[in-house]
């Protein structure tokens, strides 16, 4: 009895979702918005950077003054990517940064050559001007590549080792948390998912009210929860596709690593989307028509995702009130979570608070929206 009722309910949800999928398929604008926009935006963020960035001005603060450290300097200078524009003492680096003479500094500590010879790990520091995260990303990626080659050369000389002998430690000035454009891919993911979920669902459901077909649905045995689930499902799938697309393009175009697990990325995307879909649903129940729903959807999805998520402006640098508000913004947790998974290879053991925060938001907003939805008659 209950089994067959559940089955009937699932069939109705399937019918709703199937119909919605046909809408999406037949509307090139929706698909375009959902699948082309991410790619376009990634390239927008990525361009301007790759074309004119070679001979990046670098200062080389050599405290070791050894054969090995000079080899490292040659590796950087001879790559064509960097030009050594000065060799100050470490105390002078700050001034060169502030004066805009260099956007990166390589600091080789005393004992570099000794450590290498002893077979210990030698550490150098790369300091970045992180004010422009896009530039920062390029610098980081290139410095990383050169250091890896140098590391391989050293390892080859001293036979195979388990650990790379050369370790580059990165310090970013001016923008310590939003360290580089590597961090943009997670941010962009949050931004795009939020837009897709909130805007498209708000639009789709407001359209159903406006068209009058919502009343027709209410008059049928399809339950309100079934309507909600059926309508949201296709957009959930679409959003996850977007996430895959952004991560894949990020990896291909920006060399953004995927150090953690892909299923975990999808889990984060799923929970985040649930909250965003709830937000879209809520807007569409409150807004009376598609126009209002679009505007409210765009504002409530985009602004927090850009301003408060840490995508561009580091949360640590925000004034206290904004920092507090940002705790209520799910994109903040997605950005943090994705950064952790992609860049650091973190797992759930580290990132569960982010997941929990997003889940709480999703439950709260979906509950609120469904309650409003139930009370509203066509």
């Amino acid at each position, binding site marked *: 009895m209950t089994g067959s009722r559940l089955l009937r309910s699932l069939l109705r949800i399937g019918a*709703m979702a199937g119909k919605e999928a046909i*809408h999406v398929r037949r509307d090139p604008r929706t698909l375009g918005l959902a699948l082309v926009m991410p790619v376009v935006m990634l390239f927008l963020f990525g361009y301007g950077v790759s074309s004119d960035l070679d001979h990046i001005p670098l200062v080389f603060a050599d405290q070791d003054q050894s054969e090995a450290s000079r080899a490292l300097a040659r590796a950087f200078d001879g790559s064509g990517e960097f030009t050594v524009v000065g060799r100050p003492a470490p105390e002078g680096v700050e001034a060169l940064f502030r004066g805009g003479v260099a956007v990166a500094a390589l600091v080789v500590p005393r004992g570099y050559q000794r450590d290498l010879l002893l077979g210990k790990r030698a550490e150098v520091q790369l300091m970045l001007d992180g004010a422009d995260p896009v530039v920062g990303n390029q610098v980081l990626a290139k410095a990383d590549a050169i250091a890896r080659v140098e590391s391989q050369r050293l390892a080859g000389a001293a036979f195979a080792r388990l650990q790379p002998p050369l370790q580059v430690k990165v310090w970013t000035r001016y923008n310590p948390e939003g360290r580089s454009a590597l961090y943009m891919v997670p941010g962009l993911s949050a931004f795009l998912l939020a837009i897709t979920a909130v805007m498209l669902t708000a639009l789709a459901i407001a359209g159903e009210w406006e*068209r009058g077909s919502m009343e*027709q649905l209410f008059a049928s045995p399809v339950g309100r929860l079934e309507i909600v689930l059926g309508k949201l499902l296709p957009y959930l799938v679409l959003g996850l596709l977007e996430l895959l697309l952004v991560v894949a393009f990020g990896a291909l175009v920006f060399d953004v690593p995927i150090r953690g697990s892909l299923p975990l990325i999808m889990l984060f995307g799923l929970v985040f989307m649930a909250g965003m879909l709830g937000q879209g649903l809520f807007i569409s129940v409150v807004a009376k028509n598609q126009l209002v729903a679009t505007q409210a959807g765009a504002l409530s999805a985009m602004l927090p995702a850009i301003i408060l998520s840490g995508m561009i402006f580091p949360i640590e640098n925000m004034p206290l009130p904004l920092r507090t508000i940002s705790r209520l913004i799910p994109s903040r947790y997605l950005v943090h979570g994705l950064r952790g998974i992609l860049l650091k290879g973190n797992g759930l053991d580290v990132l569960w608070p982010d997941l929990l925060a997003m889940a709480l938001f999703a439950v709260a907003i979906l509950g609120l929206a469904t309650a409003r939805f139930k009370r509203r*008659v066509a």
Partner: protein
Amino acid sequence: MTASAPAGAAVDHAIVVSDLTRRFGEFTAVDRVSFEVEQGEIFGYLGANGAGKSTTIRMLIGLLAPSGGKATVAGHDVATAPNRVKESIGYMSQKFSLYLDLPVEENLLFFGAAYGLEGKALRLRSAELLERVGLDAQHEATTGDLPGGQRQRLALACALLHRPGIVFLDEPTAGVDPVARRAFWELIRELARGGTTVFVTTHYLDEAEYCRRIGLMVDGKLVALDTPAGLKRTWVPDRVLVARGRGLAAAGSRLQGAAGVRAVAPFGAGLHLRVDPARLDGAAVAQALREAGAEAVEVEEASPSLEDVFLAVVDRSAERRP
């Protein structure tokens, strides 16, 4: 189904409504309305804009909770078992619009699935209905490309997929051309002949003639309820005569105010007269017109239209208001 019908309830009543009321805040949109609709009849619900027709329907289909009174549809109480009601009725809302971006057939398949049909049964049923409403050739067309009349027929088909015993049609022919309206009403009558109860609202008084019985709503109240003929007898007791001939204008004005003559009005090239049926008939009026100077007079009795009824009802209600 019968289990939830109270014992002894009249089984041949598809809809039983008593003192049904709906308030929106201070405003009473439907005010203690009572009526019954028999199984298989076409029941017309007439009223001006804002009279409360749609609100009544929305209560009857379990969409809107009544503020007072009771209504039973297909044996189910609309207040306590709205879901049972929804399963046993078909509904075409006033604002009904199909999914215009979907093909014709997808609309049917979707609404069929919403009502729990599936697989082969659903496909067969939708093909059958497409044929019945004359849209089988257009089943792949995009719904938005259909003309209004065909859309309304498709909407009707969508409401009939699950073979409901009762259908509620809220102004189904609004904004459709006369030919399409006639075709649509042919479908409605066919439906009723097959035993389906049809509850239909309309603005078109000529359409109301097709209904077996008509309820007239004025400001939320049901002020008249009868067959079209019965309504005319009660509300337009005058005999309506149409006179043709020469010199009628002058003769007519002389007749104005004569015993038994209630109204005289020019009507095209002729005259429209309303007379007391107890005192005057066609022959007597023809005679009087001739005596008043008209020539070649012919007088014919015309039947009152529902429009006459409607105007009389509205007049009466207006008089009663303080």
